[in-house]
Protein backbone atom coordinates (compact mmCIF):
# COMPACT_ATOMS: atom_id res chain seq x y z
CA UNK A 1 0.00 0.00 0.00
CA UNK A 2 2.67 2.51 0.98
CA UNK A 3 5.03 2.14 -1.97
CA UNK A 4 2.36 2.03 -4.60
CA UNK A 5 0.57 5.13 -3.37
CA UNK A 6 3.80 7.05 -3.08
CA UNK A 7 5.35 6.09 -6.42
CA UNK A 8 2.12 5.48 -8.26
CA UNK A 9 1.84 2.47 -10.48
CA UNK A 10 5.19 2.81 -12.17
CA UNK A 11 4.75 -0.41 -14.05
CA UNK A 12 8.04 -2.01 -14.76
CA UNK A 13 9.79 -0.52 -11.72
CA UNK A 14 7.37 -2.01 -9.24
CA UNK A 15 7.26 -5.38 -10.95
CA UNK A 16 11.03 -5.64 -10.97
CA UNK A 17 11.12 -4.51 -7.37
CA UNK A 18 8.56 -7.18 -6.54
CA UNK A 19 10.59 -9.85 -8.26
CA UNK A 20 13.78 -8.84 -6.50
CA UNK A 21 12.19 -8.67 -3.09
CA UNK A 22 10.42 -12.01 -3.46
CA UNK A 23 13.50 -13.68 -4.86
CA UNK A 24 15.61 -12.49 -1.99
CA UNK A 25 13.00 -13.64 0.51
CA UNK A 26 13.01 -17.16 -0.85
CA UNK A 27 16.76 -17.37 -0.99
CA UNK A 28 17.39 -16.97 2.72
CA UNK A 29 14.35 -18.11 4.64
CA UNK A 30 15.33 -19.29 8.10
CA UNK A 31 13.01 -21.78 9.69
CA UNK A 32 12.18 -21.77 13.37
CA UNK A 33 12.85 -24.94 15.30
CA UNK A 34 9.34 -26.15 15.97
CA UNK A 35 9.62 -29.89 15.97
CA UNK A 36 6.99 -31.19 18.33
CA UNK A 37 6.79 -34.92 17.67
CA UNK A 38 7.91 -37.59 15.20
CA UNK A 39 7.88 -35.23 12.21
CA UNK A 40 10.72 -33.40 13.91
CA UNK A 41 13.01 -36.35 13.16
CA UNK A 42 12.22 -36.06 9.47
CA UNK A 43 12.74 -32.32 9.64
CA UNK A 44 16.14 -32.88 11.22
CA UNK A 45 16.90 -35.44 8.52
CA UNK A 46 15.92 -32.95 5.85
CA UNK A 47 18.22 -30.38 7.39
CA UNK A 48 21.19 -32.67 7.71
CA UNK A 49 23.68 -33.82 5.14
CA UNK A 50 21.83 -36.41 3.07
CA UNK A 51 18.84 -34.27 2.07
CA UNK A 52 20.35 -30.89 2.56
CA UNK A 53 17.98 -28.00 3.07
CA UNK A 54 20.72 -25.41 3.25
CA UNK A 55 21.12 -25.58 -0.50
CA UNK A 56 17.69 -23.93 -0.60
CA UNK A 57 18.73 -21.12 1.67
CA UNK A 58 17.71 -22.63 5.00
CA UNK A 59 21.23 -22.69 6.26
CA UNK A 60 20.34 -22.81 9.90
CA UNK A 61 17.32 -23.11 12.11
CA UNK A 62 16.85 -20.41 14.65
CA UNK A 63 15.37 -21.34 17.97
CA UNK A 64 14.22 -17.80 18.59
CA UNK A 65 11.03 -16.65 16.86
CA UNK A 66 12.41 -13.11 16.61
CA UNK A 67 15.09 -14.22 14.19
CA UNK A 68 13.19 -16.60 11.92
CA UNK A 69 10.89 -16.21 8.94
CA UNK A 70 9.36 -19.61 8.53
CA UNK A 71 7.63 -21.76 11.11
CA UNK A 72 7.61 -25.43 10.16
CA UNK A 73 5.06 -26.93 12.54
CA UNK A 74 6.26 -30.51 12.65
CA UNK A 75 4.15 -32.88 14.67
CA UNK A 76 0.93 -32.98 16.62
CA UNK A 77 -0.13 -29.89 18.53
CA UNK A 78 -1.79 -30.67 21.84
CA UNK A 79 -4.46 -28.53 23.35
CA UNK A 80 -2.08 -27.33 26.05
CA UNK A 81 0.58 -26.34 23.50
CA UNK A 82 -1.83 -24.37 21.29
CA UNK A 83 -1.63 -20.98 23.08
CA UNK A 84 2.14 -21.29 23.21
CA UNK A 85 2.22 -21.90 19.46
CA UNK A 86 0.07 -18.86 18.84
CA UNK A 87 2.25 -16.71 21.05
CA UNK A 88 5.42 -17.79 19.24
CA UNK A 89 3.75 -17.12 15.90
CA UNK A 90 2.80 -13.63 17.08
CA UNK A 91 6.37 -13.00 18.14
CA UNK A 92 7.74 -13.66 14.68
CA UNK A 93 8.30 -10.47 12.70
CA UNK A 94 6.79 -10.00 9.24
CA UNK A 95 7.29 -11.50 6.69
CA UNK A 96 6.41 -14.88 8.06
CA UNK A 97 5.07 -18.09 6.61
CA UNK A 98 3.87 -21.34 8.12
CA UNK A 99 4.35 -24.84 6.76
CA UNK A 100 2.19 -27.51 8.38
CA UNK A 101 4.34 -30.61 8.12
CA UNK A 102 2.73 -33.98 8.47
CA UNK A 103 -0.80 -35.23 8.92
CA UNK A 104 -1.29 -34.35 12.56
CA UNK A 105 -0.92 -30.64 12.15
CA UNK A 106 -2.72 -30.54 8.83
CA UNK A 107 -5.89 -32.27 9.92
CA UNK A 108 -5.41 -34.04 13.23
CA UNK A 109 -3.87 -37.07 11.60
CA UNK A 110 -4.75 -40.38 13.21
CA UNK A 111 -5.99 -38.63 16.35
CA UNK A 112 -9.57 -37.63 17.08
CA UNK A 113 -9.59 -37.08 20.83
CA UNK A 114 -9.54 -34.56 23.63
CA UNK A 115 -5.83 -33.90 23.54
CA UNK A 116 -4.82 -33.12 19.93
CA UNK A 117 -5.89 -29.98 18.07
CA UNK A 118 -7.36 -31.18 14.76
CA UNK A 119 -5.31 -29.13 12.41
CA UNK A 120 -2.94 -26.29 13.25
CA UNK A 121 -4.83 -24.06 10.82
CA UNK A 122 -7.28 -23.46 13.66
CA UNK A 123 -4.50 -21.57 15.42
CA UNK A 124 -2.21 -20.01 12.80
CA UNK A 125 -2.85 -19.34 9.11
CA UNK A 126 -1.01 -21.99 7.12
CA UNK A 127 0.57 -21.44 3.72
CA UNK A 128 1.63 -24.93 2.69
CA UNK A 129 0.45 -28.31 3.95
CA UNK A 130 2.81 -31.24 3.56
CA UNK A 131 1.09 -34.61 3.78
CA UNK A 132 2.66 -37.77 5.14
CA UNK A 133 3.05 -39.60 8.38
CA UNK A 134 5.82 -38.59 8.61
CA UNK A 135 6.56 -36.99 5.24
CA UNK A 136 9.85 -38.07 3.79
CA UNK A 137 12.54 -35.39 3.77
CA UNK A 138 12.08 -35.11 0.01
CA UNK A 139 8.38 -34.39 0.57
CA UNK A 140 9.26 -31.65 3.03
CA UNK A 141 11.70 -30.16 0.57
CA UNK A 142 8.98 -30.27 -2.08
CA UNK A 143 6.74 -28.42 0.34
CA UNK A 144 9.44 -25.81 0.88
CA UNK A 145 9.86 -25.36 -2.84
CA UNK A 146 6.10 -24.95 -3.22
CA UNK A 147 6.30 -22.26 -0.59
CA UNK A 148 9.04 -20.60 -2.59
CA UNK A 149 6.77 -20.62 -5.65
CA UNK A 150 4.04 -19.05 -3.55
CA UNK A 151 6.35 -16.35 -2.24
CA UNK A 152 7.54 -15.56 -5.74
CA UNK A 153 3.93 -14.95 -6.71
CA UNK A 154 3.28 -12.41 -3.95
CA UNK A 155 2.36 -8.90 -4.96
CA UNK A 156 3.98 -5.74 -3.67
CA UNK A 157 0.67 -4.13 -2.79
CA UNK A 158 -0.06 -6.88 -0.29
CA UNK A 159 2.85 -6.13 1.95
CA UNK A 160 4.39 -2.75 1.14
Amino acid at each position, binding site marked *: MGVETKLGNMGVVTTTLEKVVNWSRTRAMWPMLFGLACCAIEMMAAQSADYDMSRFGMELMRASPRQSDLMIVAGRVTRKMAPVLRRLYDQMPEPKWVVAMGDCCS*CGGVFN*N*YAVVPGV*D*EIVPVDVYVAGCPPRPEALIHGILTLHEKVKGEKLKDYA
Partner: protein
Amino acid sequence: MSELDLAIAMLQEKLGEAVLSVESFRGETTVKIRPESIVEACTLLRDFEACPFNFLAALTAVDYFPEEPRFAVVYQLYSLPQRVFLRLKARVPSDHAEVATIEGVFPNANWHEREVFDMFGVRFLGHSDPRRILMPQDWEGHPLRKDYPLGYEEVQFSFNFDEIDRRKPYAKE
Protein backbone atom coordinates in the same frame (compact mmCIF):
# COMPACT_ATOMS: atom_id res chain seq x y z
CA MET B 1 7.35 -67.92 53.57
CA SER B 2 8.54 -65.51 50.95
CA GLU B 3 9.14 -61.89 51.73
CA LEU B 4 5.99 -60.85 49.97
CA ASP B 5 3.89 -63.14 52.15
CA LEU B 6 5.62 -61.73 55.23
CA ALA B 7 4.72 -58.23 54.11
CA ILE B 8 1.09 -59.14 53.50
CA ALA B 9 0.85 -60.89 56.85
CA MET B 10 2.27 -57.80 58.55
CA LEU B 11 -0.26 -55.63 56.77
CA GLN B 12 -3.17 -57.82 57.77
CA GLU B 13 -1.98 -57.88 61.36
CA LYS B 14 -1.49 -54.13 61.67
CA LEU B 15 -4.52 -52.99 59.70
CA GLY B 16 -6.92 -55.84 60.40
CA GLU B 17 -10.31 -54.77 59.14
CA ALA B 18 -9.01 -52.36 56.52
CA VAL B 19 -7.52 -55.12 54.37
CA LEU B 20 -10.50 -56.35 52.36
CA SER B 21 -8.94 -59.10 50.32
CA VAL B 22 -5.68 -60.49 48.99
CA GLU B 23 -5.61 -61.97 45.52
CA SER B 24 -2.84 -63.48 43.49
CA PHE B 25 -3.01 -64.13 39.77
CA ARG B 26 -0.12 -65.42 37.66
CA GLY B 27 2.50 -64.12 40.03
CA GLU B 28 0.92 -60.69 40.62
CA THR B 29 -0.46 -59.96 44.07
CA THR B 30 -3.21 -57.42 44.68
CA VAL B 31 -4.33 -56.26 48.10
CA LYS B 32 -7.67 -54.47 48.27
CA ILE B 33 -7.80 -52.04 51.16
CA ARG B 34 -10.07 -49.30 52.40
CA PRO B 35 -9.19 -45.82 51.10
CA GLU B 36 -9.05 -44.33 54.61
CA SER B 37 -6.03 -46.42 55.60
CA ILE B 38 -3.99 -46.09 52.43
CA VAL B 39 -1.40 -43.71 53.92
CA GLU B 40 -0.83 -45.98 56.87
CA ALA B 41 -0.53 -49.02 54.62
CA CYS B 42 2.03 -47.35 52.38
CA THR B 43 4.05 -46.15 55.36
CA LEU B 44 4.05 -49.62 56.93
CA LEU B 45 5.09 -51.25 53.69
CA ARG B 46 7.82 -48.71 53.09
CA ASP B 47 9.28 -49.17 56.57
CA PHE B 48 9.00 -52.97 56.79
CA GLU B 49 12.59 -54.22 57.27
CA ALA B 50 12.23 -57.72 55.83
CA CYS B 51 10.84 -56.46 52.54
CA PRO B 52 10.79 -52.67 52.29
CA PHE B 53 8.57 -51.45 49.45
CA ASN B 54 10.52 -48.30 48.90
CA PHE B 55 9.56 -47.51 45.31
CA LEU B 56 6.18 -46.32 44.04
CA ALA B 57 6.19 -47.71 40.53
CA ALA B 58 2.78 -46.46 39.43
CA LEU B 59 -0.30 -44.67 40.68
CA THR B 60 -3.33 -44.80 38.42
CA ALA B 61 -7.08 -45.22 38.62
CA VAL B 62 -9.76 -47.32 37.02
CA ASP B 63 -13.31 -46.18 36.27
CA TYR B 64 -15.87 -48.92 36.86
CA PHE B 65 -18.87 -46.88 35.70
CA PRO B 66 -21.77 -47.62 36.36
CA GLU B 67 -20.74 -49.91 39.23
CA GLU B 68 -20.37 -48.36 42.69
CA PRO B 69 -17.86 -47.62 44.21
CA ARG B 70 -16.90 -46.06 40.93
CA PHE B 71 -13.17 -45.48 40.97
CA ALA B 72 -10.36 -47.77 42.07
CA VAL B 73 -7.11 -45.98 42.80
CA VAL B 74 -4.30 -48.43 42.10
CA TYR B 75 -0.88 -48.18 43.73
CA GLN B 76 1.91 -50.34 42.36
CA LEU B 77 4.72 -50.68 44.90
CA TYR B 78 8.09 -52.27 44.27
CA SER B 79 10.67 -53.49 46.71
CA LEU B 80 14.11 -52.73 45.34
CA PRO B 81 16.13 -54.95 47.73
CA GLN B 82 13.85 -58.00 47.37
CA ARG B 83 12.69 -57.32 43.83
CA VAL B 84 8.98 -57.96 44.30
CA PHE B 85 5.93 -56.03 43.15
CA LEU B 86 2.78 -55.45 45.20
CA ARG B 87 -0.42 -53.79 44.11
CA LEU B 88 -2.81 -51.94 46.42
CA LYS B 89 -6.32 -51.09 45.27
CA ALA B 90 -8.61 -48.63 47.03
CA ARG B 91 -12.19 -48.24 45.76
CA VAL B 92 -13.72 -44.79 46.10
CA PRO B 93 -17.36 -43.87 45.35
CA SER B 94 -18.23 -41.30 42.71
CA ASP B 95 -20.01 -38.83 45.00
CA HIS B 96 -17.13 -38.76 47.45
CA ALA B 97 -14.10 -39.38 45.21
CA GLU B 98 -11.40 -38.42 47.68
CA VAL B 99 -8.32 -40.21 48.97
CA ALA B 100 -5.60 -38.96 51.25
CA THR B 101 -2.42 -38.12 49.42
CA ILE B 102 0.65 -40.34 49.81
CA GLU B 103 2.95 -37.51 48.84
CA GLY B 104 4.53 -37.58 52.30
CA VAL B 105 5.37 -41.26 51.95
CA PHE B 106 6.55 -41.31 48.31
CA PRO B 107 7.38 -37.84 46.94
CA ASN B 108 7.03 -38.95 43.34
CA ALA B 109 3.32 -39.40 43.92
CA ASN B 110 2.96 -35.65 43.38
CA TRP B 111 2.71 -35.82 39.60
CA HIS B 112 0.95 -39.18 39.54
CA GLU B 113 -1.82 -37.85 41.74
CA ARG B 114 -2.11 -34.72 39.64
CA GLU B 115 -2.57 -36.93 36.59
CA VAL B 116 -5.25 -39.04 38.31
CA PHE B 117 -7.06 -35.87 39.31
CA ASP B 118 -6.83 -34.49 35.78
CA MET B 119 -7.99 -37.61 34.03
CA PHE B 120 -10.52 -39.03 36.53
CA GLY B 121 -11.49 -36.30 38.94
CA VAL B 122 -10.38 -38.14 42.09
CA ARG B 123 -9.29 -35.51 44.56
CA PHE B 124 -6.29 -36.07 46.83
CA LEU B 125 -6.66 -34.46 50.25
CA GLY B 126 -3.58 -32.67 51.50
CA HIS B 127 -1.88 -32.51 48.10
CA SER B 128 0.53 -29.62 47.86
CA ASP B 129 -0.25 -28.68 44.25
CA PRO B 130 -3.73 -29.79 43.18
CA ARG B 131 -3.92 -28.59 39.60
CA ARG B 132 -4.25 -30.19 36.21
CA ILE B 133 -1.13 -31.56 34.64
CA LEU B 134 -1.98 -32.81 31.13
CA MET B 135 -4.97 -30.72 30.04
CA PRO B 136 -5.02 -26.90 30.02
CA GLN B 137 -5.82 -25.28 33.37
CA ASP B 138 -9.29 -24.12 32.41
CA TRP B 139 -10.42 -27.40 30.86
CA GLU B 140 -13.74 -28.76 32.06
CA GLY B 141 -14.33 -32.42 32.40
CA HIS B 142 -12.17 -35.41 33.14
CA PRO B 143 -11.19 -37.15 29.91
CA LEU B 144 -10.55 -40.75 30.95
CA ARG B 145 -13.91 -41.26 32.64
CA LYS B 146 -16.21 -43.71 30.95
CA ASP B 147 -18.93 -41.14 30.32
CA TYR B 148 -16.58 -38.70 28.57
CA PRO B 149 -17.11 -38.66 24.77
CA LEU B 150 -14.57 -40.69 22.85
CA GLY B 151 -13.86 -38.70 19.70
CA TYR B 152 -13.54 -34.96 19.39
CA GLU B 153 -14.92 -33.83 16.08
CA GLU B 154 -16.63 -35.20 13.02
CA VAL B 155 -14.19 -36.67 10.51
CA GLN B 156 -13.95 -34.70 7.29
CA PHE B 157 -14.40 -37.10 4.38
CA SER B 158 -14.87 -36.10 0.75
CA PHE B 159 -18.67 -36.24 0.87
CA ASN B 160 -18.98 -33.83 3.81
CA PHE B 161 -15.86 -31.81 3.09
CA ASP B 162 -17.58 -28.54 2.26
CA GLU B 163 -20.01 -28.46 5.16
CA ILE B 164 -17.27 -29.13 7.69
CA ASP B 165 -15.07 -26.62 5.91
CA ARG B 166 -17.68 -23.94 6.53
CA ARG B 167 -17.94 -24.76 10.23
CA LYS B 168 -14.25 -25.17 11.00
CA PRO B 169 -12.76 -22.21 12.91
CA TYR B 170 -9.82 -21.33 10.70
CA ALA B 171 -7.33 -18.77 11.99
CA LYS B 172 -7.27 -15.66 9.88
CA GLU B 173 -3.96 -13.93 10.47
